[in-house]
């Protein structure tokens, strides 16, 4: 099987851009990625485009050039970008195409995501009575996790402080003002035990990735980044998942994160001990803590010590969310995962500037999780 490698990455800043459309941001990100790869749009043979707010994100072809290629819209909630990248890689691995793109773009209104429960196949009463709110789930999952594994509120604050500190080193991040742990712990509780400054917010932005066949990469770059695995898994019966009016007693299954992670390590022939830098879905600071264990990077409960020791800092032995994560960048749903990939590619190339992790990182790990219980894991290596 042919291997797919990343030869170009492009990122439109994340934040709020009044008067600028998601399509404009996506176009800019794509042009940046093409320039980074040294590829022109007519050389691109296929692509996958993800967005929540834009109904036909494939219409971006009208901005990039009407070349007639198959440009497919994809969507998997917060895991959308994982699907876009996996499919763009798969199109090369199968031998169908030589050069492909993955693009993500979104522009969300302010405030918590509001939707009708019918989008998740749930009856109306669930929304009418104030249960259809994803942030509840994150509060409830970390509350239970803290009870079971001895994670403290101080650690929730440490994670958020780290991600805002990392974002302050990233000129494309949204929340670039560092916040102290005290400031974070002084912000209002939104969903016990999670406070305002422990949550990411929906925002705007775009990202794009250009891939090609490994055997042609030398034409474009001296530092191709290999796509070693791209896996998507949905929830199994018995998993404790977002937007669940109930779950069965006596049927226990791990989060789809665990399933996706195990399958990705196996496909890549890489283990968690090999990961040099990780991007984990930090919808809130509790999620980052739980996801460290669900992705095999530590055991349940070890996070308390690891985070206290600074292991997940840029200078630590397991840097997590070096670009500020979702907390620092916000979440344009369609683009969020490609933002993770953009950062990992720069880390593995050694071009992450002030955010560059120590040594010579060889393996990068990206993880997404979202409604309705879906997770994507991508493993990259030099």
């Amino acid at each position, binding site marked *: 099987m042919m291997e797919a490698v990343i030869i170009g990455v492009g990122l439109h800043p994340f934040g709020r851009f009044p008067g600028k459309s998601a399509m404009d941001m996506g176009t800019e990100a794509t042009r940046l990625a093409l320039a980074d790869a040294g590829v022109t749009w007519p050389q691109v043979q296929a692509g996958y485009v993800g967005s929540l707010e834009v109904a036909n994100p494939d219409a971006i072809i009208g901005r990039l050039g009407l070349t007639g290629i198959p440009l497919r819209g994809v969507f998997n909630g917060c895991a959308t970008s994982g699907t876009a990248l996996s499919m763009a890689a798969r199109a090369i691995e199968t031998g169908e195409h030589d050069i492909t793109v993955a693009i993500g773009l979104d522009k969300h209104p302010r405030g918590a995501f509001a939707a009708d429960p019918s989008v998740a196949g749930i009856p*109306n009463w669930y*929304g009418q009575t104030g*249960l259809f709110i994803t942030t509840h789930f994150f509060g409830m999952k970390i509350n239970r996790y803290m*009870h079971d594994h001895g994670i403290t509120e101080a650690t929730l604050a440490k994670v958020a402080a780290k991600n805002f500190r990392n974002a302050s080193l990233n000129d494309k991040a949204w929340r670039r003002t560092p916040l102290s742990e005290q400031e974070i712990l002084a912000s209002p509780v*939104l969903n016990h035990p999670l406070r305002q400054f422990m949550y990411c917010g929906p925002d705007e932005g775009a990202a794009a990735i250009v891939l090609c066949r490994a055997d042609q990469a030398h034409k474009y770059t001296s530092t191709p980044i290999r796509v070693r695995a791209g896996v998507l898994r949905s929830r199994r019966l018995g998993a404790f998942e977002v937007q669940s009016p109930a779950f069965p*007693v006596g049927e226990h299954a791990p989060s789809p994160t665990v399933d996706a992670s195990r399958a990705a390590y196996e496909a890549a022939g890489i283990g968690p001990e090999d990961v040099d830098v990780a991007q984990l879905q930090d919808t809130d600071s509790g999620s980052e803590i739980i996801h460290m264990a669900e992705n095999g990077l530590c055991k349940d409960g070890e996070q308390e010590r690891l985070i206290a020791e600074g292991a997940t800092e840029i200078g630590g032995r397991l840097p997590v969310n070096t670009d500020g994560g979702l907390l620092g960048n916000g979440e344009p749903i369609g683009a969020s995962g490609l933002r993770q990939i953009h950062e990992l590619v720069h880390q593995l190339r050694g071009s992450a500037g002030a955010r560059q992790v120590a040594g010579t990182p060889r393996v990068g790990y990206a993880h997404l999780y979202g409604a309705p219980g879906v997770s994507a894991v991508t493993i990259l290596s030099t």
Partner: protein
Amino acid sequence: MTAPKPVAEDLFTWPSDEPRLIGSECADCSLISFPATDHCVRCGGSDARRRLLSNRGTLWTFTTQGFRPPSPPYDATDLDSFEPYSVGYIDLPGEVVVEARLTEPDPAKLAIGRPMRMVVTPYTVAEDGTETLTFAFAPEDDAAEEA
């Protein structure tokens, strides 16, 4: 003003002195589901019978809702009078772990493992004074006092 009305049919027994949630049990593999459904997510069967769920369980986890949820879909008339509430998952032994609003808004008064009892309570009042009812769980001691 009319009599209080449940937020949905086929959700809990009402009117009732001891209201119960209406779940379903798969005729093929016995999986219990809530809300009631004819379709089984375990075996794929499409034959199920209605089954009333236990009105007592233990608190599996909980959180608070500190800000008014976006409307729609939230349809309470408390635009100017929103009061924070709690939600949790209650383990109904041998049946299902169900998500519900909790009657106790203070997280300091809630604890994982605490015994809970189901109640029916108004979550909103229309302009004409008509209450809309939903199910909620109360700490067992509070529920006993109310009874």
